[in-house]
């Protein structure tokens, strides 16, 4: 049986990859994928704990996260398409009107 710490380490690596991608990348779709990566890193730790403690609530939570992530993907992709149509770019540094 694989020890819990391995799962958590992998989960942490996935989450940090997501954070770094989120901070460094300029393409909106890549940033979007980084967010998914973070979510999945968290999901992994949820199921790992659920298996370790034999508690189902962690698994249930993961389903919730996946549902929300799917909804978010739908909305997010729609926004991305709208942004591309108006700005003709996917570079976030050029989408900088979100200020006073």
């Amino acid at each position, binding site marked *: 049986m694989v020890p819990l710490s391995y799962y958590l380490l992998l989960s942490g690596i996935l989450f940090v990859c997501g*954070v770094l991608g*989120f*901070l460094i990348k*300029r393409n909106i779709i890549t*940033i979007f994928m980084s967010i998914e990566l973070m979510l999945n890193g968290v999901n992994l730790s949820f199921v790992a704990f659920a298996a370790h403690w034999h508690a189902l609530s962690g698994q249930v939570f993961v389903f919730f996260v996946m549902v929300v992530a799917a909804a978010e993907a739908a909305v997010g992709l729609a926004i991305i398409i709208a942004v591309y149509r108006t700005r003709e770019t996917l570079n*976030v*540094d050029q*989408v*900088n*009107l*979100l*200020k*006073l």
Partner: protein
Amino acid sequence: MTPNPYLWLIPILPLAGAAINGFFGRRSSKQAISAVALVFCGAAFFMALLVAWGFSSASAPYYYDLTHWIRSGSFQVDFSFYLDQLSLVMLLVVTGVGFLIHIYSVGYMWDDDGYYRFMSYMNLFMFFMLTLVLAKNYLVMFIGWEGVGLSSYLLIGYWFTKDSAAAAGKKAFIVNRIGDCGFLIALFLMIKHFGSLDFTRVFSAVRPLGPETTGAGLLTAIGLLLMVGAAGKSAQIPLYVWLPDAMEGPTPVSALIHAATMVTAGVYMVARSSAIFERAPMAMTVVAIIGTLTALFAATIGIAQTDIKKVLAYSTISQLGYMFMACGVGAFSAGIFHLMTHAFFKGLLFLAAGSVIHGIGGEQDMRKMGGLRVYMPWTFATMGIATLAIAGIPPLAGFWSKDEILWKAFGASWVYWLIGVVTAFITSFYMFRLMYMTFGGEYRGAAAQEAHGHAAHGHAASTHGHGEPHESPWVMLGPLVILAVLSVVGGFVGYGNQFEHFLAPAFQGAAREVAQETSREAPDSTLEHLLMGVSISVAGLGWLLAYLLYSRRPQLPARIAASLGGLYRAVANKYYIDELYAVLFVNPVVDGSTTILWHGVDQGAIDATVNNSASAARHVSDSVRHMQSGNLRSYAGWVAAGGAVVIAYMVWMGVR
């Protein structure tokens, strides 16, 4: 006491008139405005007559409790009205003279743009004055007291576009506040020590107390504070300075408020509080001294004034001084008697002066009048009667009341009497001086100036577009004639001490005094006649002197004035009292307010706090706002950094 539901209607009627004219007058015709003002004021007069009908010296006072007002524990003040012999006299004077002056105002103010406003204020004044007179307790009286002050302010500053009128209104209001402060403290003392402000309750609480002959106590304090209030409202030393300036108001206002009614409120209040004053000899002495000094002081200023209304203003102050002298020596009924006759002849003098001013197009300087008896015979005749009355020529009204006061004053001390007689001489002199300067000799006004080259002064003197002086219309002359009749016969109500006996129930505290007075009077009737002769002869002397100086040798007064030099200048400049007050009180207050309150507190502390906190907020925001760049990745960086900080904190503290 008998309840009488008509009492509250008397003050309310003029209030209704004031409200109707105030709210709807702007769009009404002048005929409608006059009708409303006269009907409501006349109705109050009618109601007053109705109430007075059958009210004799033996009647129990009427009262009417309109509604509750303040109920706090055992302390209670209601909106209640009260009518005894004293308030009855005041009521009839106020409504009667007030109604006549309302009629006169219709003629005098007809061409004024703010006619409805004027009539509304006049009715409002009537409401407050009647409230003052009919009050059953000191607090309702105080409402009227403050209300007449307000109406006085509004009417003095009626021509508010004129700076001097606006300033005069403010001066009257502020000086009155000083007096009212004393009045209020007196009321607080009464609440504290008697637990009530109701006249009957306060006086029955006072009655068992003995006179404060040794040292000053509570009653002396209350008496003196009441006198401070009376001095403010009735223009006595040291608070008289507002009354001469109040002549900036239209002349009917001067007649109604600043001669006949409002300024006598102080005398009424002192007479009403006779039970308190009777037991505070020191306060009485102060009242008498203030009255006597004011009478003499104001009369001397009156000699050198050239503005016809200013002469009458100082004359009013002087006559009010007589009334306080009477109250101060315990002769309250004599003071009220003089109040009544004074309302007749001084109201008449002001209305006649207004008729003169009206007839020659707004000129008030007596040096530009003269010879007007030819142009306005009715005004001349009525004003002549009033002058004879105020000078104390028998058998006119002023003689009886003034002589009564002098006789009672002699009973207290010959000093009061002597100063009173000297004042009577001066009064006679300046009044006949006024008559000779106004009606005697040749006309020195617009026509005379035209002969000299008219450009500079000609149009100023004939603003109505008439060079020739003319008699006033009958709507103005009617009240003059009625008041002239009253000035002639008004004194006879005092014949054989009838007036005193009528008022006696109102001065129950003073009843003892009156009994003594009459017992002393009988053997001294030769002395009384002697003193009467003296006062008649000084009045005659004053007339003679005025005749010699202003009719026989009109060039003489200027030479006398020149030879007196500094003394004359001091009198002509009202003894520089206004300047003295400016140095002592006004300037320190103005300077202190400017440097400390305005620049220091207001600008330095209050404004600075607001402005500095605003600019501090702006500076902080200025530095923080760069964070909101619109760059998505920097936002993400902040989120991540925040998350990192939270995680670091939890790791550092240990997760529990």
